[in-house]
């Protein structure tokens, strides 16, 4: 790998990221998949970096899942998004930060559409006005939450207590970074580092002492693909995609997978279990899986947050091996304690994948 | 008492061994015959067929009639050996009777008679006496054989005199047997001469004089020389007998059995039977098949000719190339003096080397053609020569034939190409499919433009209707006055397609037909001897370049008498020739069609 070559491309795909006063729009599904991630993001921004992040409880889905599943027409989608913008405008903000990659892609898609077809924008303003009486401004800056973490990776590194190195050997941890398709495959210029060699997660990993693995199927989709996953008959395609990636990354013995999309961590994590039950295969060391983290969870670990406060206990592939490598202390007895310490009970162990 | 001497042992043991081998193998072969054939054999022995077989054995195995027809020198050479030796044995026996007291003579007694008997009472010129006559006869026969031997020696260097361009290259056992065979008679001559000379009598007009002369030179020692020579003679015979079963000379006993088989009505089948084994054994490796093979003469491939192929079968040395690299043009079969069906054996062997091709033709749709009295079946290849189809349509229309163009919408292969791969069974589905359609049409005549199809229809389909090549059918129509013709007198050289000529014995019809519309010119190699165009479907492993060489060679013969047109009766030949021909290449049908006045 010739890194100068990559760096040159990264230079070509620099992206403007606001440095404060963000209007944060949430993801529909991450709350369920990785509940603590968005919370961690707010905590990092507000408590650690002392930034203003605004939210509005009234904000809704961007309708992306419906849109990509062909059940919501584009006009509706644009109007829904216009409403999000109006909430932002009302809060006196102009920097939009999305938690969801699909939303991020869709916001960009809509903004590009409006840029090229002003009359469509006019039309949508009309729809929103008649439907809700609201008005809105086009955001000055649209970023994905991972862009923002990327922007402040150095700061996080500075105040962080953990690093991506083996605490005994000092060996940099090997990381597979996986970017959500909608992050930059639609608009390479909208993502840090473009579409072929996105830099947003690489930047974090490098800054925090890790080492990125560039494996052949790096570009390949995790397999979420709404149509694939939502319809059971198609679910095999979804699974096959993840499998393709696992088989391609396995020889590199990655210590964990880092993602920036709601779907990817979900599927890269859960499908490892499914495949182990279906075909008896595991992709990590000695019968374990490869831990999968969201960038917020990772940032949290760097900053020394308690793994269980980061929701790592809801992962299907146990993260303990990773924590051990990083030398992070954790209290096993607390793993399955819920809010205020009530016992949630222990899940059944999978038959193949090592869990406990 | 019976005379005996140690030196007779090699001969006797060798003879016993040879007889044992012959009986053993003949028994084996007859026993292994398929039920049907075995019954034919049993029936044959006690019938006139037995005698007719003996007759052929005499004319072919002793006189070598076919060989004579091919080349007088070659024939004489074979005859002098076979007949001469045979008579030496017969008369030798008679002669020995004169002196022998016992009724059971050991076989060596007549062979070495002169060693045991020195009858000075009768002199060499008294041929009016019985012993004298025999002495004369025996010496004469010996000369007869030796003359053959001399020819054989000449043939080594000057094979062309014997009508052979190339001769079979022999194996070690062949060489040993050959050396012994060549030794036998000169040594016998010397042995007898020395003996007669030493004893001063008992010899014939050759042996006695030569003997006396030798005695003059060698005096006393000639006795010892004689004795040494008798040993050599016996050894030569013994060793020859022992090597026979492992050398080309094995064909002598095997051919006898083959002749009986043939006369009893036993023939080759689609799979290997003892008949096949006997045929293989009966190959004398005379090498006649080498020259007629175009792969050798034109394409310079010299290791696959029938003689080598058959040898490789016998030694279980067949390989994929030798099995699949053959035009199956039938020229070697035609030329073989023993009449061995080399092509048939080749196809049988191919089965092993064409892979377990489990063809699946289940996709063929059942179809119900309309009824018609005549069916025209163009064939796969003919669809690549539209001119032939156009001509046929025109001719049939002109003659007002109610016909059905069976494969107009696309041909289902006749099955012969698959059969040529040795996979006879694999062709079944194709054959069944076509057969059904043919029968459903209730036609009484099937006409095809493709000799390959023609052969398949005739040999594999056993159809209850007439199967004709178009040349034959068109001739019929003309004779019936159904096609008006105005002869266009172009010089035409006719090429016999392998599967039409040698394959289906259709030589006259095409020629008669052509002579009605054109002027036929002589072709150096025609009829049975016609050359293959090189396009043959019989050969699998050959490069386009080699094919070209064969085609060009065939064209040279056809174009020698510079005709205006090269006529053929096979779409494959036509397309193959078209690539290199200097003159126009037309199918017979096209020529006739052009001759129809508009």
């Amino acid at each position, binding site marked *: *790998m010739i890194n100068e*070559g990559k760096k040159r491309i990264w230079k070509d795909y620099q992206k403007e990221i606001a440095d404060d006063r963000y209007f944060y729009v949430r993801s529909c599904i991450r709350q369920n998949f990785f509940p603590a991630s968005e919370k961690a993001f707010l905590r990092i921004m507000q408590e650690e970096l002392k930034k203003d992040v605004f939210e509005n409880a009234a904000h809704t889905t961007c309708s992306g899942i419906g849109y990509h599943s062909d059940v919501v027409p584009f006009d509706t989608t644009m109007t829904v998004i216009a409403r999000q913008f109006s909430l932002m405008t009302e809060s006196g903000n102009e920097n939009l930060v999305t938690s969801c990659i699909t939303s991020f892609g869709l916001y960009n898609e809509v903004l590009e559409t409006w840029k090229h077809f002003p009359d469509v924008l006019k039309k949508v303003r009309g729809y929103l006005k008649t439907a809700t009486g609201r008005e809105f401004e086009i955001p000055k800056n649209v970023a994905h939450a991972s862009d923002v973490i990327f922007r402040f990776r150095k700061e996080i590194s500075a105040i962080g207590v953990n690093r991506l190195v083996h605490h005994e050997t000092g060996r940099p941890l090997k990381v597979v970074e996986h970017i959500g398709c909608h992050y930059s495959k639609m608009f390479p210029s909208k993502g840090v580092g473009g579409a072929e060699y996105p830099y947003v997660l690489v930047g974090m990993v490098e800054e925090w002492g890790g080492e990125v693995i560039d*494996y052949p199927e790096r570009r390949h989709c995790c397999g979420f693909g709404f149509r694939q996953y939502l319809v059971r008959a198609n679910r095999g395609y979804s699974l096959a995609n993840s499998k393709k990636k696992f088989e391609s990354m396995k020889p590199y013995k990655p210590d964990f997978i880092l993602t920036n999309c709601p779907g990817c961590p979900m599927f890269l994590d859960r499908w490892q279990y499914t495949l182990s039950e279906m075909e008896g295969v595991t992709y990590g060391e000695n019968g374990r899986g490869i831990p999968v983290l969201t960038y917020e969870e990772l940032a949290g670990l760097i900053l020394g947050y308690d793994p269980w406060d980061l929701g790592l206990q809801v992962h299907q592939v146990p993260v303990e091996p990773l924590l051990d490598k990083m030398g992070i202390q954790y209290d096993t007895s607390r793993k399955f304690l819920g809010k205020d310490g009530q016992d949630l009970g222990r899940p059944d162990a999978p038959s193949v994948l090592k869990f406990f | 008492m019976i005379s005996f001497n140690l030196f007779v042992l090699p001969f006797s043991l060798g003879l016993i061994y040879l007889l044992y081998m012959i009986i053993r193998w003949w028994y084996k072969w007859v026993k292994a015959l398929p039920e049907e054939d075995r019954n034919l054999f049993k029936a044959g022995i006690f019938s006139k067929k037995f005698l007719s077989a003996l007759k052929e054995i005499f004319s072919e195995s002793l006189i070598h009639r076919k060989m004579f027809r091919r080349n007088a020198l070659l024939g004489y050479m074979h005859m002098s050996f076979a007949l001469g030796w045979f008579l030496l044995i017969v008369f030798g026996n008679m002669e020995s009777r004169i002196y022998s007291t016992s009724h059971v003579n050991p076989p060596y007694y007549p062979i070495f008679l002169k060693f045991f008997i020195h009858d000075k009472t009768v002199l060499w010129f008294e041929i009016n006496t019985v012993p004298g006559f025999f002495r004369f006869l025996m010496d004469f026969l010996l000369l007869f054989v030796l003359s053959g031997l001399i020819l054989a020696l000449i043939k080594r260097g000057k094979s062309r005199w014997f009508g052979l361009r190339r001769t079979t290259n022999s194996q070690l056992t062949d060489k040993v047997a050959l050396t012994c065979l060549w030794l036998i008679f000169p040594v016998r001559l010397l042995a007898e001469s020395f003996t007669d000379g030493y004893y001063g009598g008992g010899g014939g007009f050759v042996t006695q004089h030569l003997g006396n002369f030798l005695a003059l030179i060698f005096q006393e020692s000639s006795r010892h020389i004689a004795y040494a020579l008798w040993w050599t003679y016996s050894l030569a015979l013994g060793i020859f007998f022992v090597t026979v079963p492992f050398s080309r000379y094995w064909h002598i006993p095997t051919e006898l059995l083959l002749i009986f088989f043939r006369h009893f009505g036993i023939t080759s089948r689609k799979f290997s039977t003892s008949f096949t084994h006997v045929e293989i054994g009966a190959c004398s490796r005379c090498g006649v098949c080498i020259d007629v093979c175009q792969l050798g003469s034109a394409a310079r491939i010299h290791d696959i000719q029938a003689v080598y192929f058959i040898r490789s079968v016998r030694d279980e040395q067949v390989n994929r190339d030798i099995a699949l690299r053959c035009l199956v043009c039938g020229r070697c079969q035609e030329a073989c003096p023993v009449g061995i069906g080399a092509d048939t054996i080749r196809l049988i062997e191919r089965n092993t080397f064409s892979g377990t091709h489990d063809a699946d033709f289940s996709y063929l749709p059942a179809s119900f053609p309309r009824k018609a009295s005549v069916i025209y079946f163009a064939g796969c290849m003919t669809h690549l020569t539209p001119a032939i189809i156009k001509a046929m349509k025109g001719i049939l229309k002109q003659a007002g034939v109610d016909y059905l163009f069976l494969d107009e919408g696309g041909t289902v292969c006749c099955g012969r190409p698959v059969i040529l791969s040795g996979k006879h069974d694999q062709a079944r589905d194709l054959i069944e499919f076509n057969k059904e359609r043919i029968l459903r049409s209730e036609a009484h005549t099937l006409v095809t433009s493709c000799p390959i199809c023609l052969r398949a229809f005739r040999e594999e389909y056993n159809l209850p209707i007439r199967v004709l090549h178009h040349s034959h059918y068109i001739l019929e129509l003309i004779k019936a006055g159904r096609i008006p013709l105005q002869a266009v007198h172009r010089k035409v050289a006719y090429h016999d397609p392998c599967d039409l000529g040698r394959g289906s014995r259709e030589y006259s019809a095409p020629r008669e037909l052509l002579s009605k519309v054109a002027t036929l010119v002589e072709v150096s190699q025609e009829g049975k001897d016609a050359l293959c165009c090189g396009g043959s479907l019989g050969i699998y492993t050959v490069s386009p370049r080699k094919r070209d060489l064969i085609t060009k060679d065939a064209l040279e013969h056809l174009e020698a008498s510079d005709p205006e047109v090269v006529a053929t009766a096979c779409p494959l030949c036509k397309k193959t020739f078209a690539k290199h021909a200097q003159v126009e290449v037309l199918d017979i049908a096209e020529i006739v069609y052009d001759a129809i006045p508009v």
Partner: protein
Amino acid sequence: MAKTVVIVGGGVAGMTAASRLADLGEKVLLLEREEEIGGHLRNWDRLFPNRRPGSEVLHDLKETLGNRVEIRCNESPGEIHSLQSSFIVELESGEKITCDAVLMATGFDLFDARRKEEYGYGIYDNVITSADLERMLRSGSPVTTSAGKAPSRVGFVHCVGSRDEKAGNLYCSKVCCVTGVKQAIEIKEHLPGSEVFGFYMDLRMYDRHFEEMYYEAQQKWEINFLRGRVSECAENEDQSIVLKIEDTLTSRPLKMTVDLLVLLVGFVQKPETVRIAKLLGISIGEDRFLECLDEHTRFNYTGKPGIFVAGTSRGPLTIANTIADAGEAALQIHNYLKTLK
């Protein structure tokens, strides 16, 4: 100082035109921006289809040129002013040259393979261009992977930067197909044990002996040709390249690992040529190559009297075609000059 003709560019076209003009008795100044004349030919090892050493051809051209014309290396025109029937060529050195005609023989640039990001040139160690390979072959050192090992499988990607709307080049560069076949054969000559693949959309063996070379490549050298356009490349743990392609002949996606991947880069116009063209008001095609008055009969004439064009600055050409083109140009210029007197 006065000259009859100024030739911009000392490559194959420039050298040829110069010597022809000299034959015709014209006074010529040949400008070459590099330190030496010869153009791309200097970097090429052997030439298709007869694999004659490029150095040999270059030597021939130089010899016929002899010292009959003035050659200035490390020189290129900054400005060109047109007067009534003559031009003033202002060199970068500041020197001004008056002349009656200018021949644009500025040649071409090779497509910058880095622009096809997905192929990973400049990112993966074992992705090289056809030019890199020629350099390797010319140096005489063995063809190896970046790790110095003999590659056991080598791939050639055809049409890199040509026939590619994404690269902004819709045209065919004409010479890459046969170059690919030539280089594939050379790989097999150097590494008989290796397996060589050509990934192509069409193989355009349009000129004499090209098709035969293709046939030889298949038959004698057992080079494999796979019809499909490489969509992306990735690097394996061992630096080998895994590429994705549709095997259009089976209509299925195909994945293959190669130890060395050669990108057959096409022709593109030189920005410098475009600049001068704008300066002179010569029209430029959609493909940025210089337009001539007529593709069939007046292909050395630009729209502007006195300004002529020859060689690859007006579109991809083989060396043979370039020489013929430049010869014709020389004759046309000679005739033009006669009309002036």
